[in-house]
């Protein structure tokens, strides 16, 4: 009885508030402890490697580490006046070391990125660097007259920057000159901006197509009895469960010039036999295939939202005199918007990052930005540029999220 008269003290004498905080703390700590493995997993296997990789977009210490002397001397050079003997001496000294350490290939690759064609200049010179004697500048030029080209030295100066905007600039078709100024890339080498636009265009169109095709399907699914809708849902999900190879083969069989679709067009006189439609190995192919694959990502959120819209809303609208169309447009459609938002965002963002499908059926004008990230990852080994392009894309996707949040509201999105 006496306890209740001093309500702020718990049984063991500590103030109730503190006691409450303690017990809450303990349960929170336990919950956190349970989530810890997943957090650690995400941090170690996802956040850290990606962040680490993305730093390569603006961080490249290769030249500076492998050619420390040259880097030091180039710092003081204005990139305009003639290269000095001091620079030549430092270069030769570094070349000797890098030949010995077998790092010359890395150095040469790095500089070659700034100035094409200089790779062999470095590897060849390094091979005989030991035999070069002062005055070094003369000796270098005697070895190969390209050393008299100031652009080679400018390329080295650019390469010697540890933190460099060069890759990010390249990712948007700009290039950094030795003096640090940034200009547009030569016309016949501009490609990334075109690709970003094309990626946007394709993603946008795929989203629209998925919406146009998916909305009626989702609506139908939501109105069918559970048994039938589950069966149809499996059909919708089928592309998910089909191996990429089977899917690709199917598309090729359907879409190629001698394929099923074109045969049908010819039969029905929509195309002449020797002038068949190009439905694959171009942008059309990419659009068709991506719409096919991404359709479920539109249908599922739509379906889950539509299922929660009771038929009585539309009935109510009709009972009040609304035609079918008005009832749909003013009552049903607005309530399906959260599903549209989720589906469209999902499809759009997935589409932006797609690369296997475009690689398989995209031909030359159906390629997307990710195909070039892939190209630089696997073929040209220019991971820095790949990281820069990835970073640009990441920023863009975050920007899209932000826009979406402003327009629709992220909490207005229902994923199911």
């Amino acid at each position, binding site marked *: 009885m006496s306890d209740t008269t001093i309500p702020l003290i718990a049984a063991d004498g500590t103030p109730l508030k503190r006691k409450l905080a303690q017990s809450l703390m303990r349960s929170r700590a336990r919950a956190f402890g349970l989530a810890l493995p997943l957090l650690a997993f995400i941090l170690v296997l996802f956040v850290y490697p990606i962040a680490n990789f993305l730093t390569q977009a603006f961080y490249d210490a290769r030249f500076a580490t492998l050619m420390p002397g040259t880097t030091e001397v180039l710092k003081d050079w204005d990139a305009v006046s003639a290269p000095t003997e001091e620079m030549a001496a430092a270069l030769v000294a570094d070349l000797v070391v890098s030949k010995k350490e077998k790092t010359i290939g890395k150095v040469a690759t790095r500089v070659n990125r700034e100035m094409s064609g200089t790779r062999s200049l470095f590897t060849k010179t390094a091979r005989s660097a030991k035999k070069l004697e002062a005055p070094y500048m003369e000796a270098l030029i005697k070895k190969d007259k390209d050393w008299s080209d100031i652009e080679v030295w400018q390329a080295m100066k650019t390469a010697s920057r540890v933190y460099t905007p060069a890759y990010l600039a390249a990712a948007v078709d700009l290039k950094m000159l030795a003096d640090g100024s940034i200009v547009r890339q030569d016309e016949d080498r501009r490609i990334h901006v075109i690709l970003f636009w094309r990626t946007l265009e394709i993603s946008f169109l795929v989203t629209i197509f998925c919406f146009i095709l998916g909305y009626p399907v989702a609506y139908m699914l939501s109105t069918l009895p559970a048994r039938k809708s589950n069966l149809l849902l499996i059909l919708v999900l089928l592309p998910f469960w089909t191996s990429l190879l089977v899917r690709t083969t199917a598309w090729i069989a359907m879409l190629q010039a001698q394929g099923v679709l074109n045969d049908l067009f010819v039969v029905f006189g929509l195309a002449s036999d020797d002038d068949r439609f190009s439905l694959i190995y171009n942008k059309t192919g990419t659009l068709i295939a991506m719409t096919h694959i991404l359709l479920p990502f539109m249908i599922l959120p739509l379906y889950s939202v539509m299922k929660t819209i*009771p038929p*009585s*809303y539309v*009935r*109510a*609208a*009709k*009972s*009040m*005199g*609304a*035609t*079918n169309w*008005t*009832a749909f447009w*003013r*009552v049903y459609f*607005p*309530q399906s918007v959260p599903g549209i938002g989720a589906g469209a965002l999902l499809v759009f963002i997935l589409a932006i990052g797609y690369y296997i499908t475009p690689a398989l059926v995209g031909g030359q004008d159906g390629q997307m930005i990710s195909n070039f990230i892939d190209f630089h990852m696997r073929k040209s080994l220019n991971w820095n540029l790949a990281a820069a392009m990835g970073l640009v894309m990441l920023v863009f996707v975050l920007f899209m999220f932000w826009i979406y949040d402003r327009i629709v509201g992220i909490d207005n999105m229902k994923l199911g």
Partner: protein
Amino acid sequence: MALDYTNNAFVRFDRVQKSYDGESLVVKDLNLDIPKGEFLTMLGPSGSGKTTCLMMLAGFETATHGEILLDGVSINNIPPHKRGIGMVFQNYALFPHMTVAENLLFPLEVRNMGKSEREAKVKRALDMVEMGDFGGRRPAQLSGGQQQRIALARALVFEPELVLMDEPLGALDKQLREKMQFEITRLAHNLGITVVYVTHDQTEALTMSDRVAVFNDGVIQQIDAPDVLYEQPKNSFVAQFIGENNTLEGVLEDIKDGVALVKLDNGDVIDAKPVNVSAKGDRTRVSIRPERVEFRKDRLKKGAHLLNAEVLEVIYMGDILRTRLNVAGNSEFIVKTRNAPDQTRLNAGEIIEIGWQPEDCRALDA
């Protein structure tokens, strides 16, 4: 208002049948005339086909057979939005993405009504349900009772002559429900509209309606004014379904002077009013309301048959006393007596004699 039951029914169901699956009939041969201005309730257990009837009338389901007429015109082929019928749904179906005022404007907008007229009507409708200050709110910001009022206002704002309501009070608590029952009837009578109201709550049906149609198994069992329904059920389903009821089973011995002699299964003989029996030897179920059972001989007619009963339990309920008896093998036989100063108190274990006026005891179908 005097209702015209004879001709020119405002709503007419003419031999209407409905089947969803092509195998079983959910509504079987429904004939129903509803005069203008009537408040008709469809009452029946869940699954008895009430909603189906309402949906056919509204146009969201098509009748498998038969015709539905509105004001003398067949509406079988008129789409729902051209029928001009107001509707209140069980879950209210207020559009969540619109404000209350927008919800009410909706039926007026689709009718291309002028702006000032629209707004005047919405204001009047909101005032009518005492929700004048809530026009700017979203449905989610209203309580259940408030949503109910808005749904009602929305069904009435475009001034339909016929309004359908499908268990509109089902989601409200008892007190609110009673208040709304009163308001709905008041509004309906003031506006002179015809209402078809669906419920499975008999009290609601009895208190609100001009007439009640009792549904069971897709068939109207009885359609009558509430008091007739209660006092004179036409069959044992209606007797059971409406109000509390005691039944005893037996065989019809004889009918003499409009009084049936029924021999109960334990051999006792009682008097009853023949309603649903005709031939001697028919099995019958006699039905008597608990408040019409008498155990004070001074109140019974001379010569009436009496039955022996054992008092099992007396429940004190304040205004009334409920006494559970064992009568002719039925141990759930209830007697209700007013808690009046002159009332005899019974005690458990006592053996008494009970009886009733023959016209209060109805011999129905077995």
